[in-house]
């Protein structure tokens, strides 16, 4: 599954700043989006709506700050833009970004292929 919606595309763009290994055409994008979708399915409707709104706001603020879409920014510009958002004067926006950052980390580090990079041998399961 490659990003099909505005939401998925912008989540992936944000995720590429949080975890640079997800940038460009990384084969990890598909399992990342699969995991992200699983996480989104498990959260309450209110949080789900807030995350969707936040991703939309990131897109809008890119136009406000950069006069360009988030997608059209190059790698360094994306990093600078997200850094700026993490210093935004409205603490709820910063806290929302922090929450989205957490989801990105959990989705990314939940990919078994990533475990090798961090020297994690994977789970031990007994009695199944």
């Amino acid at each position, binding site marked *: 599954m490659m990003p099909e919606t505005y939401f998925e595309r912008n989540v992936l763009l944000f995720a590429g*700043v*949080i*975890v*640079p*290994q997800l940038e460009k055409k990384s084969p990890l994008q598909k399992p990342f989006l699969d*995991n992200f979708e*699983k*996480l989104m399915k*498990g*959260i*309450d409707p*209110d*949080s789900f709506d807030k995350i969707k709104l936040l991703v939309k706001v990131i897109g809008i603020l890119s136009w406000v700050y950069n006069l360009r879409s988030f997608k059209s920014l190059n790698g360094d510009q994306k*990093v600078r833009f997200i850094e700026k958002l*993490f210093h935004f004067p409205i*603490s*709820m926006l*910063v*806290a*929302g970004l*922090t*929450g989205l*950052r*957490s989801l990105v*980390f*959990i*989705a*990314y*580090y*939940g990919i078994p292929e*990533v*475990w090798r*990079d*961090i*020297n*994690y*041998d994977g*789970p*031990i*399961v*007994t*009695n*199944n």
Partner: protein
Amino acid sequence: MDKAYDVIIVGSGVGGGTVADYITRDNPGLKVAIIESGPFITKEFFNQKEIDMTTLYFNHGAVLSKNLEIAVAAGKSLGGSSAVYTGVSFRPPAEVLNNWNTAFGLDFLTDDYVNRSLDEIEDEISVHELPDSWDNDNNKLFKKGAEKLGIPLKRLKINVKDCQQQGFCNLGCTAGAKQGTLEVQIPKVIARGVEIICNATVNTVEEHFVNITLNDAPARTLANKLPSGNYSLKGKIIIIAAGALNTPAILLRSKRKLKLKNKNIGRYLTLHPVFNINAVYKEKIKNYRGFPKTNYIDHFSDSEGFYLETSFYFPGVTAKNNPGYGQLHSEMMRDYHKMMSILILVHDKAEYRNRISIDKNGNAVINYLVSSNTRTSLIKALKEATRIFFAAGCEKALIPASDRIPITTGDIADLENIISDRNLNFSKTPLSSAHPQGGCRMGVDPNTSVCDKTGKVYGTNSIYVADASLFPTSVKVNPYETVMLLAKWVAENIPV
């Protein structure tokens, strides 16, 4: 459909499971149902994978406060939070019980009753100290660091049997070693004929009624016996044990039906705020294996208001807990196999302003402001934990509220300036909590409490509470034994 029971228990966690066990011991004919919001899922379906197993929690383990500054973890599956706790077993501190006795009139909490009850409970759920030989490197390094600094250390008691040392107790134990409700009380009460109704949201309670919506069972969990839909279940006695987030919310949703005017419902919530912090040791240590917790420090409890415990988390949560993002963060995560970890638990005061409320849809909302005392304790705890990291031989520490990421050995002399309140920003490094308590305070004065000293909700005839929401103040330690103690007391005093 209307089904009728003698007792309906809302929640299958530590409170619900314990109360179910005690009321059915000497009452073989009693018709009892347990209503659980989560699915019927057992160890055979656990797999220690973070993405799959965080479904055992409400909101994947992060129910956020309204101001987004603290994320609360609460179990949402059969066994409740006992399916995902580490099994750290503390008796309630004597000074806390003395305060509950003297300030709130809970005079049943005599030394004799408490010791007799907890001896029995601990025996049943196999509470014991793990031998030193079980210490993984994280615990060994914690000990080494503390001893080098002259900080006294204590061993934790744990309730496990035949532990396979898989590492991540908080993702459910595939060996069923943790002797929580899922492994001990639930099988016992099922054998005694107690009916378990999972996937059921409790909308409201009324005198002698519980109104539920039965939802579809998620994939890979046991199917419901009844079709999905709304049901009204009749019970002579209703015991709510849905945890400190949901028990107050159920009562608040039911306020009109129960004609409750008590202003204390949901109030005096405490969260036992937590930072989990990591550092990088000089060589490979593989702390994700072995039992994650064997040691703790209570040396700063009275003077500075915090405990330090060992801990170690799965990759996603570890990444979340480490500050920053981008290239530097990814490089730090490559050292996951060298990471040492410490859990900071701060004792927060029960304050009227901190509460569970409900939104327009009736969902629980956590209203919690971190006090200045808690901030001070957090900063002190971060400094002490960082000193332990370096005394243990770590090379870098990844600390929130620090103006250096990472802090290195060369920074130790300047720690007082590097870690400071001015850098403590919960919007960027939110706190966590796994021990929500209060909201339905037990006490003899209805003006300051929600439940009387038998657990009955003031102003009702048939509604009781039996979980951590009863705590008048924070118990200051991992709370499950105290929940079991109060649930046992409630069970013993219910007129069945």
